């Protein structure tokens, strides 16, 4: 049997999922998308059941990717029972989704979670009455305490029923539905969706469009608005029948903290401090862990490989492969994973949505809105997951975000700044590079706002409730971000590293270096081998630094290059061309044109600033 959990974001659905399923949870994507769908197994009375956890959604008739995927999945009709999870503190709004889900005629049960918080804030729900109004099983739960969770699976197996909420949609909509059913022979469900502009059948959609525009003319409201309003009214009616507010303690627990977090003062300074300390923590923890991992790797893997006595070609290949694995591990776990754990804590605590609200205005200036703050922050870990998370934005904002996120100094670039500038020049110089990059990001945003095509959408974002983050949830979320790094960026790293090793082996890199030497020396004031290091940087940003050390013949770069040269090298490699994984993801998400434009733009930015700095240093 196959069950699925469905509900609004932040209703504690995932928590319930984690408690119901044991080990062996599989995170898979909806086919052809990046929308995560968790599926796990539950054993009950020696029977093995499959449980799916859909992403949190507000509606089954929206146009976001999550909503579309869940809708598509439900329509496949192979789910035996739907477990609809509602938030007791926001029962009315949550009933709206239940009413929509009921239209799919899948047997279902109701789980009303967060029952304790609702009670604390004076919302008394008559669960039996709710059950009799809806005509299905209702289980009040407190997932954080594990209360009543054990009743869910037995209920889903025995008590799940198809319910008919019988929402009155008005005679025009009903007439429209009837005639669509008659004309095309579709189901009532298909007709309702088609009237709202959702569906694939061409004949049906054409007929629906005609009827929809007639209805809209008569009512000054689109069918979607009419249907949604009727559902909300129904939800309101049900909620008012089953909820009895005792009026006591109607203020939410998080009220006081919240009123501080969403004000400009002290909200904005808090936001700045949170972001700064997150980055600082990653910087410190990351550098420490990286040294350990790289050190161990050198001693126990790289060195033994050399002692195998492979032929020069295979030795080169093995080295290229291992160095990629080493760098992947050296970056992935110390920097990327640490970063994503911290970010996940911010997301889970509900703080991130407040940050997005506060940043809305500032993000507008650079052509986006508050919701784009989260992808921008993810970019500090690795640009790849960051770019994958911009799908929720509008086309115009995605274009702007592609440019800006690619410029955000990711973990690998942090390694360059830390390893070259902070070590050999000083911490102030390191921060000046961050400053330069931030200024360039803002300027780029200001310019793109004027030129990017398309309409600007605004932010509509529900504030997640402030909650104490839980370790298991946080780890899972961090893993979801991390997964994109491991499965998309890492394979590219390995392939490109081996490819580069081959180029090197056949002497092509040396040719290349000779070709670019004059440019390097004249314009950027860098030694000729710097061009090779920069090329390696395209494959993996931090490799620019490692290669430089290898080619310079010493790890003490301060001894072979002047401070100004190191600074220029760092600036150029941080700015110029995103790494190959980022380009690949840009290509996949945004198409060839944007990927090429972003690469070209950052390339020229790096070169121009390198040349500019060189000119300035010469005068000084």
């Amino acid at each position, binding site marked *: 049997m196959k069950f699925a959990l469905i509900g609004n974001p932040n209703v504690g659905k995932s928590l319930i999922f984690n408690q119901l399923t044991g080990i062996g949870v599989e995170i898979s994507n909806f086919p052809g998308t990046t929308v995560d769908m968790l599926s796990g197994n539950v054993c009950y009375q020696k029977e093995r059941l499959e449980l799916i956890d859909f992403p949190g959604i*507000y*509606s089954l*008739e*929206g*146009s*976001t990717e999550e909503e579309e995927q869940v809708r598509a999945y439900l329509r496949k009709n192979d789910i035996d029972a739907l477990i609809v999870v509602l938030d007791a*503190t*926001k*029962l*009315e*709004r949550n009933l*709206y989704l239940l009413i929509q889900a009921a239209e799919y005629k899948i047997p279902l049960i109701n789980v009303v979670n967060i029952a304790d918080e609702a009670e604390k804030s004076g919302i008394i729900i008559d669960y039996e009455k709710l059950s009799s109004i809806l005509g299905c099983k209702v289980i009040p739960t407190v997932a954080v305490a594990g209360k009543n969770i054990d009743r869910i699976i037995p209920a889903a197996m025995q008590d799940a029923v198809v319910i008919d909420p019988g929402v009155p949609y008005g005679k025009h909509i009903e007439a429209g539905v009837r005639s669509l059913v008659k004309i095309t022979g579709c189901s009532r469900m298909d007709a309702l969706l088609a009237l709202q502009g959702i569906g694939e059948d061409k004949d049906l959609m054409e007929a629906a469009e005609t009827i929809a525009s007639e209805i809209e003319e008569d009512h*000054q409201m689109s069918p*979607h*608005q009419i249907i*949604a*309003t009727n559902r*909300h009214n129904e939800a309101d009616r049900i909620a008012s029948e089953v909820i009895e507010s005792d009026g006591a303690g109607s203020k939410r627990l998080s009220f006081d903290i919240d*009123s501080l977090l*969403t*004000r*400009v003062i002290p909200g904005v300074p808090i936001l700045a401090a949170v972001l700064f300390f997150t980055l600082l923590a990653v910087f410190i923890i990351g550098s420490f862990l990286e040294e350990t991992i790289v050190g161990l790797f050198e001693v126990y893997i790289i060195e033994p490989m050399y002692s195998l006595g492979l032929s020069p070609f295979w030795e080169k290949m093995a080295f290229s492969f291992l160095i990629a694995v080493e760098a992947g591990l050296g970056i992935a776990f110390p920097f990327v994973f640490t970063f994503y754990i911290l970010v996940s804590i911010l997301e889970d605590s509900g703080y991130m*949505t407040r940050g*997005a*609200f*506060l940043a*809305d*205005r*500032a993000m*507008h200036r650079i052509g986006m*809105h*508050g919701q784009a703050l989260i992808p921008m922050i993810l970019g500090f870990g690795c640009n790849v997951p960051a770019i994958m998370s911009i799908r929720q934005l*509008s086309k115009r904002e995605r274009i702007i975000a592609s440019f800006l996120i690619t410029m955000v100094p990711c973990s690998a670039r942090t390694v360059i700044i830390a390893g070259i500038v902070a070590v050999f020049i000083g911490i102030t110089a390191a921060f000046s590079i961050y400053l330069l990059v931030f200024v360039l990001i803002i300027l780029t945003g200001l310019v793109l706002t004027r030129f990017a095509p398309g*309409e*600007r*959408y*605004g*932010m*509509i*974002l*529900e*504030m997640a409730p402030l909650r104490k983050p839980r370790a298991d949830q946080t780890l899972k979320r961090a893993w979801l971000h991390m997964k994109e790094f491991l499965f998309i960026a890492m394979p590219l790293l390995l392939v490109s590293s081996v490819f580069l090793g081959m180029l090197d082996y056949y002497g092509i890199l040396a040719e290349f270096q000779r070709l670019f030497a004059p440019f390097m020396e004249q314009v950027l004031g860098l030694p000729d081998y710097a061009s090779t290091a920069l090329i390696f940087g395209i494959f993996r940003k931090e490799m620019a630094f490692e290669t430089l050390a290898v080619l310079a013949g010493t790890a003490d770069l301060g001894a072979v290059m002047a401070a100004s040269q190191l600074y220029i090298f760092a600036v150029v490699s941080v700015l110029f061309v995103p790494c190959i994984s980022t380009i690949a993801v840009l290509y996949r998400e945004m198409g060839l044109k944007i990927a090429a434009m972003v690469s070209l733009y950052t390339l020229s930015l790096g070169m121009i600033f390198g040349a500019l700095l060189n000119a300035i240093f010469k005068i000084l």
Partner: protein
Amino acid sequence: MDQSDREDYLEAVIMHSAEGRGAETLNFLSGLMDRDADQIGADLRVLEKEGDLVIEEGGSISLTEEGRSTGESVLKKHRILECFFTEMLGMDPDTASKEACEIEHAASEATVNKIGNLLSGSGVRCRGRRHGPGFVETHFPKKECRFDVIDDFSEGDILKVVGMRHGPGGGRRLIDLGIIPGEEIRIVRRLPGRSVLVSVKGSEVAISPEIAGRVVVEKLPDTDSL
């Protein structure tokens, strides 16, 4: 002079109170109508002959009863049409004003009144206001008519959603979150950048200024209930 020119003159005289301006009348009208003073003088004499206005000694003009009622009727038609274009059809104010200027002469008062009834029937109230910064006086100054949106109110206000103006994006999400006509919402926070946090159906939703500027609302008297 054709009828629409005549109506334009009378409309402009009423709207900018061009009566009793003495010697500067010609220059004043010339600035408004984008025609040279000689032409204006000639036109005014034609209007006088038709009985719409009287040119007094010293150059002042005053409208006759007929002239005034014609001008007022045209002005009213313009306001209703423009309001209809911006608020119901979601056209941008400049185009709306320009189109209204054309149609006001052709459409009958009865027809335009019907549009007016439709507007008030859907809860749209038109009123002139906001001659703030960014206001450019062109041939005909923008006769702004708009109705209240979330963006017009401040922290703590309790509002009732009346409707939604057309615009890009976000419509469905707002509806799904419960921001629908008839719903009561409260502004929890309003940042200096005009992003707002509203409380609706027990949750708090952050909304960007451009979207908050499209949700038509009316203010409810303060109560402690919400």
